[in-house]
């Protein structure tokens, strides 16, 4: 590589890193406890669990759960029901004063899917983990904060790639993994920076880039919803289950029957979310049922179907566009939550190694004077 090209890449590496380093350091530090948020919730007892009942106790209807929730919180209406894979007997129920809200006054409660009883109100807005989450996700600045952190993530991508370009010239006279321990601390840290940077390369690129995609989640969902509504209005829908189809419970206006008809239309899928008519994720006349597959990959790739509770017709408004697939795949690859506790531990160790790369990079820049004076 020519000296001038090398200098140019060096300049790119220096400035892309310097601008984002403090933010990426913060993201790595706050991300560390977030990797284990599930385990921490469980250990500190802040997790809400369904009361013990014999296994296989049948679930009551979702209409019953909604009615009970509204009875407990008068003046509210249900917006969404969310199901968690590892708590099949609980529904997260989101309530608000109106269905067409911006959710600024929404309330999330947890209901027992078997008895319809309200089990508790999860506390997401207080405590250490909440601070970690907000710092990691939006710096308490909403969408602007998300997009800003996303831009820092893009700079990290530039820093990593320029770092790879610089790796070869630095390693010309060294063998892989060599740390010149007999030399000055700056040389030793340069070798460690290069070694740790190159071994964490793929992981850091994957977690960094999927993190950037996650910052666009709000925009992506709004785009998909607009597309679905447009397809519905233009009549470009595919009927999966006709109103008069046999082999499915007849529509009776209830949500439970509507959801059961969706299950018939899409077998081998599990219900991840139910959106009430009139909400952002549904249409004024249709219930939206969001379904996921049952493997680690397909459970992330959800598909929304619309069902008219009165006629019973099940529609697919639009096949999931590529950008939603990209977002849904980005979530597990960023969180590292798809391979049990061992994967989370590896995620944490790689995160710590990345912290060392960032810290040593900063140290190398601060100590650059010594190097320049000598040469």
């Amino acid at each position, binding site marked *: 590589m020519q000296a001038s090209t090398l200098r140019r890449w060096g300049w790119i590496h220096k400035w892309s890193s310097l601008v984002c380093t403090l933010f990426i350091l913060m993201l790595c530090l706050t991300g560390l406890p977030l990797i284990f948020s599930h385990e921490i919730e469980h250990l500190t007892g802040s997790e809400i669990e369904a009361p013990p009942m014999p296994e296989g106790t049948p679930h009551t209807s979702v209409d019953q759960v909604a009615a009970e929730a509204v009875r407990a919180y008068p003046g509210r209406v249900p917006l969404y029901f969310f199901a968690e894979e590892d708590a099949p007997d609980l529904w997260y129920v989101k309530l608000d004063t109106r269905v067409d809200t911006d959710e600024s006054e929404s309330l999330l409660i947890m209901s027992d899917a078997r008895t319809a009883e309200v089990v508790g109100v999860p506390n997401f807005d207080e405590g250490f983990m909440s601070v970690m989450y907000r710092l990691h996700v939006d710096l308490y600045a909403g969408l602007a904060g998300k997009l800003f952190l996303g831009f820092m993530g893009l700079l990290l991508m530039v820093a990593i790639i320029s770092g790879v370009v610089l*790796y070869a010239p630095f390693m*010309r006279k060294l063998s892989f993994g060599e740390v010149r321990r007999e030399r000055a601390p700056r040389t*030793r840290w340069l070798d460690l920076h290069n070694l*740790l940077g190159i*071994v964490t390369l*793929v992981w850091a690129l994957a977690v960094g880039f999927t993190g950037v995609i996650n910052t666009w989640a709000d925009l992506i969902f709004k785009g998909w919803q607009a597309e679905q509504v447009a397809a519905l209005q233009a009549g470009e829908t595919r009927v999966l289950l006709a109103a008069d189809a046999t082999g499915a419970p007849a529509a009776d206006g209830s949500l439970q029957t509507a959801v059961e008809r969706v299950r018939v239309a899409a077998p081998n899928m599990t219900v991840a979310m139910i959106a009430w008519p009139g909400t952002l994720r549904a249409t004024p006349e249709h219930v939206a049922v969001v379904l996921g597959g049952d493997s680690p*990959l397909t459970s992330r790739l959800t598909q929304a179907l619309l069902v008219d509770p009165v006629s019973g017709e099940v529609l697919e408004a639009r096949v999931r566009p590529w950008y939603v697939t990209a977002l849904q795949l980005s979530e597990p690859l960023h969180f590292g939550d798809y391979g*049990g506790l061992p*994967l989370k531990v590896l995620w944490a160790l790689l995160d710590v*190694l990345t912290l060392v790369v960032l810290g040593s990079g900063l140290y190398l820049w601060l100590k650059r004077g010594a190097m320049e004076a000598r040469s």
Partner: protein
Amino acid sequence: MTRIWLWPVVVALLSMLGLIAGLVSEDLGDWLSWGALAVPVAIGCQGLARGRAAQQSRG
């Protein structure tokens, strides 16, 4: 060229395998994931340990 890039490419390919395996298959995929991603972690930690050892021998 080969001397410089052989190990980085091996580690990069193993990392990719590790990231994808657990996503597309359970059980076997998880084990592949753990095994493959342990390689960059092990090399990194070993490098750090050597760096520390050097510091102590200097002091």
